[in-house]
């Protein structure tokens, strides 16, 4: 067994040092009834080649996003990640280290987290960011919980443009905490509809831009209304590349910004692991969930970084912690930071412009297909279209043409009555050939 270094001779010698006769003497505290002498009904160990073949066979049953024209988005985006990113995150020193509890021998991880926090704060236009959350959806739920702690109010208003999964995750947590969730009707261009639901009980308003239909909104007015009511504005973004083109949440008055960072450095991974971005105004820092990395000095006065403000965290505060979170998404945050460093401000802006441009080309091509209606008035790299018939059936039909046409909105929210709405996304990986293939196939299927 290639991962187990002890030899039979080692084991015998070690049992002797311990002073017991057999390995089972070390399991003596297990109630006899619960000791399994037999192997379970599962396969025996296998060599590397056999395991590789088994996994490769499963992988081959999936159609990867890069296998042909591909237009799915809805909170996860296909982007090109430089080879350098994946190389660095696989370095032993990053991959096989733990949470940096011993800062003297974890400055690699810690400095990266400090750089990550600064990048996220810059992108969101806010003062402070934490060292990452599990993903965007859980970050959204944590933001609502944080707003409750800050405002000591129990009601959260969610826009109808919020990604349905994000809304569901937030509702799950809020329910347990006894919070009231006021989720507005699902609508394509209606972030501002939250205004009517804000009242004196409102802890926070949650809006998304670009929203789940790709629609971009200036939320400044919502911020004003929320603040006037003593509530916080939480702005959600599921496509981090959009930060390169659009006004930041902070510029528009957000108190907390949460985002899904998958687009930068991480890859699709069938939905996870991803990396949640979480930023806020400085005055709320002690109510933030998750890890924070801060600057300090060592005994010789040299600059260094440590995990800090851990009095917010569960391992110190136990039931009084701001959240139960322990694990972050460190390796994905590293990937994010490396990719963002390679991009730089210039590269990110160019990447965003390229995404936007490709999406507009896609819009123009699809708008020319008879029976197709473009539903999103303003968008970044994703928009909603109305197709004749059920979107899910159109998607299945186009698979036969080798095109993965997008995400039927009904997959995200079957109860919204939007069975004919299809979300389509384009990124820098989308070619003109992909767009033409999509338009042609759609024309053929809807004719």
């Amino acid at each position: 067994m290639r991962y187990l270094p002890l030899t039979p001779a080692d084991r015998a010698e070690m049992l002797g040092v311990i002073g017991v006769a057999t390995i089972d003497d070390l399991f003596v505290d297990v109630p006899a009834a619960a000791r399994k002498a037999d192997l379970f009904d599962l396969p025996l160990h296998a060599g590397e080649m056999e395991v590789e073949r088994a996994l490769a066979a499963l992988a081959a049953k999936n159609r990867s996003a890069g296998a042909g024209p591909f237009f799915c988005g809805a909170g996860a985006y296909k982007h090109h990640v430089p080879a350098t990113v994946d190389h660095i995150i696989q370095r032993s020193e990053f991959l096989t280290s733990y949470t940096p509890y011993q800062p003297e021998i974890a400055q690699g991880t810690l400095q990266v987290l400090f750089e990550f926090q600064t990048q996220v704060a810059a992108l969101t236009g806010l003062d402070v960011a934490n060292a990452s959350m599990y993903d965007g959806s859980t970050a959204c739920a944590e933001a609502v919980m944080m707003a409750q702690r800050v405002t000591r109010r129990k009601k959260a208003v969610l826009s109808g443009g919020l990604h349905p999964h994000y809304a569901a995750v937030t509702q799950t947590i809020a329910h347990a905490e006894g919070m009231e969730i006021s989720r507005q009707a699902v609508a394509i261009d209606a972030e501002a509809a939250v205004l009517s639901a804000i009242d004196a009980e409102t802890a926070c308003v949650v809006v998304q831009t670009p929203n789940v239909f790709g629609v971009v909104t200036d939320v400044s007015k919502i911020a004003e209304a929320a603040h006037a009511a003593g509530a916080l504005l939480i702005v959600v973004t599921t496509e981090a590349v959009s930060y390169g083109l659009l006004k930041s949440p902070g510029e528009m008055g957000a108190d907390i910004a949460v985002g899904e960072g998958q687009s930068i450095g991480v890859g699709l991974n069938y939905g996870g692991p991803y990396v949640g971005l979480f930023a806020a105004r400085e005055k709320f820092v002690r109510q933030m969930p998750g890890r924070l990395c801060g600057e300090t000095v060592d005994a010789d006065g040299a600059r260094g970084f440590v995990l800090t403000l851990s009095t917010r965290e569960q391992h110190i505060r136990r039931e009084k912690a701001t959240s139960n979170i322990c694990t972050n998404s460190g390796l994905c945050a590293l990937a994010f930071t490396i990719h963002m460093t390679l991009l730089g401000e210039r590269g990110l802006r160019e990447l965003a412009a390229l995404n936007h441009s490709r999406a507009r080309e896609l819009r123009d091509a699809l708008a020319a297909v008879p029976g197709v209606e473009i539903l999103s008035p303003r968008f970044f790299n994703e928009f909603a279209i109305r197709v004749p018939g059920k979107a899910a059936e159109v998607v299945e039909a186009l698979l036969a043409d080798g095109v993965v046409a997008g995400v039927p909105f009904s997959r995200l929210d079957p109860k919204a009555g939007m069975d004919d709405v299809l979300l389509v996304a384009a990124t820098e990986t989308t070619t003109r050939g992909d767009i033409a293939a999509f338009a042609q196939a759609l024309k053929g299927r809807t004719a």
Partner: protein
Amino acid sequence: QDEALIFEMGGWDKSGVDFDLPSQDASDLGDLVRTAPIGLPGLSEPEAMRHFVRLSQKNHAIDLALYPLGSCTMKHNPRLNEKMARLAGFGDLHPMSPQSTTQGALELMDRLAHWLKTLTGMPAVALSPKAGAHGELCGLLAIKAAHEAKGQAHRRTVLVPTSAHGTNPATAAFVGYDVAEIAQTADGRVDLADLEAKLSPDVAAIMVTNPNTCGLFERDIIEIARLTHAAGAYFYCDGANFNAIVGKVRPGDLGVDAMHINLHKTFSTPHGGGGPGAGPVVLSEALAPYAPTPWVVSAGEGFKLVEEAEDEAADTFGRMVAFHGQMGMFVRAYAYMLSHGTDGLRQVAEDAVLNANYIKAKLSPVMSPAFPDGPCMHEALFDDSWLEGTGVTTLDFAKAMIDEGFHPMTMYFPLVVHGAMLIEPTETESKQELDRFCNALTLLAEAAKAGDVERFTGAPYLAPLRRLDETLAARKPRLTWRPEPTTVAPAPMAAE
């Protein structure tokens, strides 16, 4: 060697990528477009590579030496698993791709679920929780939903032993429960009498770690479960230490109702400097109906995801994550399971326990084991009574280990042991490395007792940095880089 921050390298107009710029105008979004500088530096690829490689060398890692963090389970991470997770069919697979195009992924999730259920002897598993603490949340939400369904919503207390991981009480509080502590016996186990006394009709659940955080198996575990159930409460088991018993003991046979499994601990997905994790939760028949969506079911020839709270999922307590969970970790864990097989996993538990007891035996002459009698499980716990009068603290001793090339053990946890030092070697350490470790610690311990105090209080001396001022960091938090007043701010970008 000091490594500058990316913000200090003058890269306000550099980039390490090349794009074919779009020919169209930048945007039709008018006022929605950002005009102010973002403040992001860039680096060319050679500079970026060097920056991050240099930084990496400031880290300790399991690939460099023993990393005996008790309860954290730092074991070898096979690179085969990394390679498998990067197969295009997994790594480049979109979560909302039509399910007919993701059958291999769904099959893998189904197989992983089968292994987890078989290894734990439990009938159901929720795969989607993103980490151990998220799994605890899942378990408590299922318990809460079950109580609500039975008209037992008034049960508002969760019992937690003093020795528990901080996540246990934090999770209970996070979902609105009151937390009450259960006392511990002198031999490091749950105090049955105290438990019995506190098991009132108000109790929703107990949360017990087994093997517990003292590295000991809860001998009375079956009785604990019986008492809990008799009181109408559920038994949540913190499965962080499942690696000690995998293949040998099935939690389902012990009366557990819910248990999370840290895939990064028992099944060796890499820790990555703190995450990502993955925390699937196995559930009993009683709790299974309330499991969070989505889950995988086989559907005729293939597999499908149950994503909505309807039909077979009518009782679900809801959704915990966007999409379906940590697929990248599932691939790694499944590859690890196939590599070990049922025989290898059993050997994993045996070797983990053997290694821990070996360390306990070798170090007991110079340090003081917290529970000297009887074997430990996968980790050896020492207290600091042996340091009394030396002027050296647990922290000092731990920092001195750094100078010997080892990562310190877990310190001051569990809280029930004074100056605790919790050492977990895992099964992937060789006897040679254990001997090297024990010899180094023995020499250190002798030095501490011989009065060589400065070696400890000043430690580490040989690390990239000396001891860091954590108080300063917390008192005046500097959480992001800010330009010095003299720094030239980045200029606004010209329109491309």
